[in-house]
């Protein structure tokens, strides 16, 4: 069997995305189930050395392409073109990418350029004689499906927290390559980068999320949510109602039209658990809800529901967490 | 032989189209959010809800019955009825604002010239003006042709003398379609003519507002005409066309009353259902008692049957069915009787709470009664239907 490739996604500062370390870990176990297929990491960027070295901790071999234009242009389409050229030259069976915004942009363009199919948003991946089988949670978690690629070849995007990242026993080699061909797709310049005020920790791949809903009552109420998140080493999430009320930026929204997350812990403060929100968080490993209403929908799928005032209970949890760590 | 119908030519699947559902839902949201909270106060104060008239105008609901070239939305009868139904579900008085605007404008649609339509429709479509339909008199109710109000030609004008009674919106309308006798010697159905009267005008007076059992926010007026001059240019159709215009108007307007009745019944059903779900007696929801459950089931079945007959009647009438009179009478008869039965049962389901104004069902029951009376009593509807079945007597 030919190779399994892992796209090493670079953050704006050139570091490797945490999601890519998970995808790389998953690629190794997939290779083990696929008759020892070779796993290769691919890092494409203006200054790829740091990300490549990081990815090499997880896979036996990393191919590096220096592509200066990604420093100040939207990366997805550019990386897709370089990757498509490499695929043309070396013909791997499977390309794995993260299922975040960067990975989706990349996978979409790459699929169009190569004609290869995409299994999107895998929450698990296993080998089979017919190629990889991806597991998906669909229809807001009402159904688990397993899907295959026709001919066993194609692209798979993987959701955060599908596996816990684990480095390989020994670091892999790093090889610089230069795929042939010109960039023919129009490049889109980044003319400015704006740091949002009070930009919170990203919820995309957070291990712990403390989320607030309408019940939080206002922007100041999110102070307690943020304190809890900090004490737990997690990120702050929110329902659409809280975002629509302007209490917290859209980047923190979880649910149907926000982000879909799969943290180890989801602490839901004043969140009723309506279907639109549920679809974004119900695959969390542990769900704890604090809510006044014991009959709120979230009680149907949480591991624990604390019936009470979220401020009182939240402050009590915070005090006990600080006591433990202090 | 059964009456000719166009039933077999009804196009497409027997469902509302996406546009009809959107329209219904848009009006329902407005009715729930803006109309329902006002309904009890409108009933208690018995004042015409100018604020809701503006609301209907601002949301183009009053534009529904009018052609697009005159600023309307070109809605066919079904669209108008869907809107009346949803408004009446929250407040029958508010539903009637649209129904009467439709009723009053139909004579102009049916008998008016293009010039007359262009003159009056734009301000009616925008809701800037309201129109009322002045046909009934104290001694001429079901027997329309017995009207005594006279209109006599005098140069370029007609001069109207007489009185009208039970005129919905008669005191708040800017335009009145007045039916008056122009030729007392003609055969019964050629005696009347229809005029559009712009009010206020000299000699016109509102002499009384009725105190009614229900529909209290909707002013029902007695009107007096003392040598009121109306230009001949305001005559709809020809002299003697009045009776025919009135009958054809009622063929198209009765579904509006049926829609009001379906809306009232649906509103009562929803209140009763919610109550039966929440109210616990003897340790269980009262809806789980079979006697209550069966009442709710019958209320739903009757209301849905009335609704489907109404929608079907609208489609048939719009398609130009030759038996439009029958369809309009059928739907008003069924919907009016159903509304009375369902609202009465809703009061029963709520028990003592249904009899007091803490819940809206007593108002709905009082409002429902009028749908069995106006635009032809239920007895007249049966007469119309029987005539359609039997043909004209020999």
């Amino acid at each position, binding site marked *: 069997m030919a190779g399994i490739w892992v796209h090493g996604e670079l953050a704006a500062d050139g570091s490797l995305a945490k999601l890519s370390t998970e995808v790389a870990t998953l690629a190794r176990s997939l290779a083990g189930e696929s008759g020892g297929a070779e796993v290769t990491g691919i890092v494409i960027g203006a200054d790829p050395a740091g990300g490549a070295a990081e990815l090499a901790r997880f896979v036996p071999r990393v191919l590096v392409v220096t592509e200066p234009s990604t420093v100040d242009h*939207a990366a*997805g*389409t550019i990386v*897709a073109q370089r990757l498509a050229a490499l695929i043309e030259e070396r013909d791997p069976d499977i390309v794995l990418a993260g299922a975040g*915004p960067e990975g*989706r942009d990349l996978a*979409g*363009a790459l699929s*169009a*350029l190569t004609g290869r*199919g*995409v299994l*999107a948003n895998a929450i698990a991946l296993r080998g089979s004689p017919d190629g990889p089988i991806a597991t998906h949670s*669909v*229809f807001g978690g009402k*159904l688990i*499906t*397993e*899907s*295959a690629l*026709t001919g066993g070849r194609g692209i798979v*995007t993987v959701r955060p927290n599908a596996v816990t990242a684990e480095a390989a026993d020994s670091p892999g080699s790093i090889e610089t390559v230069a795929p042939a061909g010109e960039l*023919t*797709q*129009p490049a*889109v310049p*980044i003319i400015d*980068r*704006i*740091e*949002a005020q009070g*930009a919170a920790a990203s919820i995309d791949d957070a291990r*712990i999320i403390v989320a607030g809903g309408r019940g939080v009552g206002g922007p100041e109420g999110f102070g307690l949510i943020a304190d809890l998140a900090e004490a*737990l080493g997690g990120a702050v999430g929110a329902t659409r109602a809280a*975002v629509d009320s302007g209490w917290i930026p*859209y980047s923190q929204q979880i649910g*149907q039209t926000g982000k879909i997350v799969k943290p*180890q*812990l989801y602490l839901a403060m004043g969140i009723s658990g309506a279907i639109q929100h549920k*679809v974004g968080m119900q695959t969390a*490993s*542990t769900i*704890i809800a604090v809510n006044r209403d014991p009959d709120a929908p979230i009680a*149907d799928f949480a591991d*624990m*529901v*604390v*019936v*009470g005032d979220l401020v009182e*209970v939240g*402050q*009590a*949890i915070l*005090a*006990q967490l600080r006591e433990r760590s202090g | 032989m059964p009456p000719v119908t166009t039933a077999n030519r009804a196009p497409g699947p027997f469902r509302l189209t996406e*546009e009809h559902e959107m*329209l219904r839902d*848009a009006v329902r*949201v407005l009715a729930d959010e803006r109309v329902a909270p006002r309904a009890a106060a409108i009933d208690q104060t018995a004042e015409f809800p100018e604020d809701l008239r503006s609301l209907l105008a601002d949301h*183009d609901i009053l534009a529904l019955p009018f052609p697009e070239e005159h600023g309307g939305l070109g809605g066919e009868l079904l669209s108008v009825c869907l809107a009346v139904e949803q408004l009446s579900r929250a407040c029958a008085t508010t539903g009637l604002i649209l129904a009467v605007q439709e009723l009053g404008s139909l004579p102009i649609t049916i008998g008016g010239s293009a010039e007359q339509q262009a003159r009056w429709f734009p301000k009616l479509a925008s809701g800037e003006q309201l129109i009322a339909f002045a046909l009934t008199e104290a001694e001429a109710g079901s027997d329309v042709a017995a009207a005594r109000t006279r209109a006599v030609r005098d140069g370029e004008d007609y001069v109207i003398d007489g009185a009208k009674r039970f005129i919905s919106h008669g005191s708040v309308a800017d335009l009145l379609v007045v039916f008056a006798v122009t030729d007392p010697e003609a055969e019964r159905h050629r005696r009347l003519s229809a005029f559009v009267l712009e009010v206020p005008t000299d000699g016109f007076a509102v002499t009384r507002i009725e105190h009614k059992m229900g529909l209290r926010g909707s002013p029902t007026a007695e009107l007096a005409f003392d040598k009121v001059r109306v230009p001949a240019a305001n005559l709809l159709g020809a002299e003697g066309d009045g009776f025919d215009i009135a009958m054809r108007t009622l063929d198209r307007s009765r579904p509006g009353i049926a829609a009001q009745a379906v809306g009232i019944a649906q509103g009562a059903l929803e209140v009763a259902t919610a109550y039966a779900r929440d109210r616990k007696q003897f340790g269980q929801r009262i809806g789980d008692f079979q006697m209550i459950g069966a009442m709710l089931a019958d209320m739903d079945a009757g209301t849905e049957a009335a609704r489907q007959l109404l929608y079907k009647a609208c489609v048939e009438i719009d398609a130009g069915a030759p038996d439009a009179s029958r369809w309009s009478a059928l739907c008003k008869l069924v919907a009016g009787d159903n509304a009375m039965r369902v609202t009465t049962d809703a009061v029963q389901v709520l028990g003592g709470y249904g009899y007091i104004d803490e819940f809206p069902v007593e108002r709905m029951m009082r409002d429902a009664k009028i749908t069995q009376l106006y635009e032809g009593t239920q007895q007249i509807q049966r007469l119309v239907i029987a005539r359609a079945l039997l043909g004209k007597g020999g």
Partner: protein
Amino acid sequence: MRIVVLTKPVPDPASGGERLGADGRLDRTNSPAVVNGNDEYVLEKALKLVEAAGEGEVILLTMAPATAPETMRKALAMGATRGVLVTDPPIGGSCTVATTRILAAALKTLEFDLVLAGVDTSDGGAGVVAPGVAALAGLPYLSYAASIEPDAAAGKVRVNRITPSGYDVLEAPMPALISGTQALGEPRYPSLKGIMAARNKEITTLTLADLGIDAGTVGTAGATTKVVDSRAPEPRAATRVVREEPDEAARQVVALLAERRLI
């Protein structure tokens, strides 16, 4: 300003009736179809941009079964000018690769300054069709837009792309393809005027033959992926309800966190 909006009818997520058929494909019969949520946000933005420009049109481009006009009408009632529906029985069961090819081919039949699409859909949710269409059509691609500001005079469009820490400000010449999010703003309710006007709006139908696409390369026949199994998710363990006073409740929460090695 001419804007094409890619809209997809999806089973209403609020209906709870979404399911797969025996063939592993979406069963559209069990729940009402609605316009995909993210598509409504970009449609709203498209309508606002055309209103601000004072001229132009918003064209819906949809690939869907022949029943789709029912859902396209709501978008038309919101104010879109007209619709283009690509529909052909062989399209059923198409994967994202075929969908991307078909939409890119349909775009070639239209003139536009911008193409807008929701970042993903509530049924498939792959989020790969928009970038794929941009690549096949050779259009600049600006994704995850929180704002869209075209400058018609300069022939450019500026987009704030959502990033984990804020925004990247992107700029590209028009025509361009932009995928957008809820941050673009709440979609309007259709007005009665809009609803009634929608009845007379045109929905043009395109078939595979019109687009020069071989029916054997799309649909189930040409699919690059296949659902091989589906099952109900593992039920979650029973919920533990804690009704104690805040301090005791917090103690139980912290104990659970410790037990599961979350702290």
